[in-house]
Structures are given as C-alpha cells and as structure tokens.
C-alpha cells in the first residue's frame, strides 16, 4: 500500500464519526493526564523556580499565562478556519464539528489574553487599555470568535449554519498576520515579539523553559477540551443512528 492510499484511508477513518468517537475516547485520559502534569510543572516553574525579572520584578510572572493564552488564541483560530475550509470543500461533517467546537475555547483564550494583559498593563504601562494596533486587533479576534458562535446559533439548519460560519472564519484569517506583525509594522505600546521571531529569543532560558511547558500544556488542554465537545456534538447529531443507540443500551 503506498502513502497516498494510507493517507486517504486515515482520512476516511477519521471522517467517520463512530471511529472518531471511539478513538478520541481512548486518547482522552492520556491527553488530560499529560495536561495536568505539564500544567502543574509549568506553573511551579513559572511561579516558583523562575528568577525575578531585572526590570519588572515579580509582576512579569503573568506572562506564563498571558503569552501561551495569546498564542492559543491565534492557533485555535487557524484550526477553526482550516477545518471550516475542509468542511466547505469536502462537506466533511467532522470538520464542521471541529470548527464550531473550537470557537468557544478560542474565545476563552482570547479573553484570558486580553484580561491578563490588562492586569499587567495597569502597573507596568500605567493604563488598563490603549487603542494601539496589537490590542485592537486582538480585541477584533475576540469579536470574530463571538461572531462565529452567534452566527452558528442564529441559523436553524446546522449544516447550512456551518457553511456560513466557515466563510466568516475564513474571512477573519486576514486578521491573524495583522495581530502577529502589528508590533513590527506600527509603533505600538505593546512590546515586540520575545520568542516567536527568527532571532534568538530575548528571554533568559530559566524563564523560557516554563513558558514553553505552559504553551504545550495549553495546547493539550485545547485538544482534550475539543475532543470532549466534539464527542458530545457527535452524539447529539447522530442520536438517531444505530451505533449511538447501541452505545446507549450498553451503558
């Protein structure tokens, strides 16, 4: 069997809701277990073992939540838009479900990034909020997530809703590079990138390691949370099918 065939097979397997339901149920405990482990390690590393910053003292420690949350807000949006495009082109049900289940998680991470940034901004910048390019484009991202959720719920037929939402999500992709490069294209109050640049990260290794552990932990949390939401959505949509009925009788 060649590679193209095996990819096609894998694609069809994962596109099948019963298969995904079974496999994700097997993976879920490991994903969440690893998340709890890394989250605890990252928090301990960030809040206890990482040294204080030379300028900001202890207050900088909010970056261990703020930065991974901001990364997740962009990452989840890309997952949402790409699965939206897959759903639109191949009419794949599971991709539509992944798209719509990602929206509330992404919105939460965006809100978390905005809130922690604001809490940090008051003592450091001397303001809760400014309308600079980075902060404004990140706020726009929150509205895009909320728009996706609102539009999906406004349309009765869920397959039609998914198509409309996919287009909205794809259009919003333009905002993603704007958020990332806003601090380089324009003068902003928000500082430039520390880690996500081609240069060497301008953060000491003892602070970078817990930051990266937290970033991986947040990714795992997203995957675990997404799986739980997708599984529920699959059961709701397929409640009349044979395999769901069998599943219900078993338990």
């Amino acid at each position, binding site marked *: 069997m060649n590679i193209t065939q095996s990819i096609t097979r894998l694609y069809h397997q994962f596109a099948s809701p019963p298969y995904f339901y079974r496999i994700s149920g097997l993976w879920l405990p490991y994903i969440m277990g690893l998340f709890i482990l890394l989250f605890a390690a990252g928090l301990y590393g960030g809040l206890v073992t990482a040294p204080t910053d030379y300028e900001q003292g202890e207050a900088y420690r909010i970056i261990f939540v703020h930065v991974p949350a901001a990364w997740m807000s962009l990452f989840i949006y890309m997952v949402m838009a790409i699965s939206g495009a897959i759903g*639109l082109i191949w009419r794949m049900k599971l991709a539509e479900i992944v798209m719509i289940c990602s929206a509330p998680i992404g919105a939460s991470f965006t809100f978390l990034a905005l809130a922690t940034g604001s809490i940090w901004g008051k003592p450091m910048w001397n*303001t809760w909020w400014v309308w600079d390019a980075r902060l404004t484009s990140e706020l726009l991202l929150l509205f895009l997530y909320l728009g996706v959720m609102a539009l999906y719920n406004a349309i009765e037929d869920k397959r039609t809703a998914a198509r409309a939402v996919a287009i909205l999500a*794809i259009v919003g992709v333009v905002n993603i590079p704007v958020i990332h490069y806003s601090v380089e294209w324009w003068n902003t109050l928000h*500082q430039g990138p520390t880690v996500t640049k081609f240069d060497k990260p301008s*953060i000491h290794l003892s*602070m970078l390691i817990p930051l990266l552990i937290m970033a991986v932990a947040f990714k795992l949390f997203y995957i675990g949370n997404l799986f739980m939401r997708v599984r529920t959505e699959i059961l709701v949509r397929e409640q009349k099918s044979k395999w769901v009925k069998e599943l219900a009788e078993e338990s």
Partner: protein
Amino acid sequence: MKPARKKRLFFIIFLITGIAVAAGFALYAFNQNLMFYFSPSEVKQGKAPVNKLFRMGGMVVEGTFKKEKNTLKVFFDITDYEKTVTVEYTGLLPDLFREGQGIISRGKLNSDGIFVAEEVLAKHDENYMPPEVAESLKKAKK
C-alpha cells in the same frame, strides 16, 4: 479532485486573496492613524498635529530628569537618538519609568517647543532576564 470541490476550493482561495488585498489597501491608507505615537524626529519635522493632543514616544535621556520642589511637576528629555524633545508632566509616573527606559506620553506642544504631557505610559521592551544576568550584561558593555 471532483469539479464541484475544485470550484469550492478556488472560491475559498479567491475569497482569501480578495479580502487580503482589500485589508492591505485599507491598512495602508490608515497607516498614519495606526501609528500609536510620533518619534521626536517626526515632531521636530512638524509631522505631529498642532494644537491637538498626540502621543510622542522615545527613550528618556540619562541625567535629564528634574523634579520641581513641593509639586508633582517633572521635566525630562526624550529622544529617538536623532532629535530630543523636552517633556513637562504633572502627576504620578508608572513603575517602569526611569532614565534610559522607553516611554510614551500624550499631550500638546506649547509655544516654547516643550511637550506638555497629560499622560505618561512606560513602554516595556521584549527582554526578560534575571537581575544577575542584567548586571553582568551591563558590566560586559562597559
């Protein structure tokens, strides 16, 4: 790929390109408004609005910070390493304010060319390190 799927794929590519071009034009047109602050050079060149509030950002020049006795009024120079503008400010300064640190202030130019600020914000840079490392970096520079 089936023709119907191909059509939808092209539709999506067309959609993204179209929106990206439109957004690019819009951002390009608003470029000046998206600048959060002016540099001292731009202010000296007269690019900043006159008699209107605007923001100016730069580094606080070492050794220029002066405080008026018994008031909260302070004076300091800010620079972009080309031109320097004196700032006058009455009020509390942020934690990160110090000489050699980047700041952004909002205010107006007065007739003497002094920037009268209503608000001073500290702009933090992207560097994070423990104090000992900062200390040794300083020594290495000297």
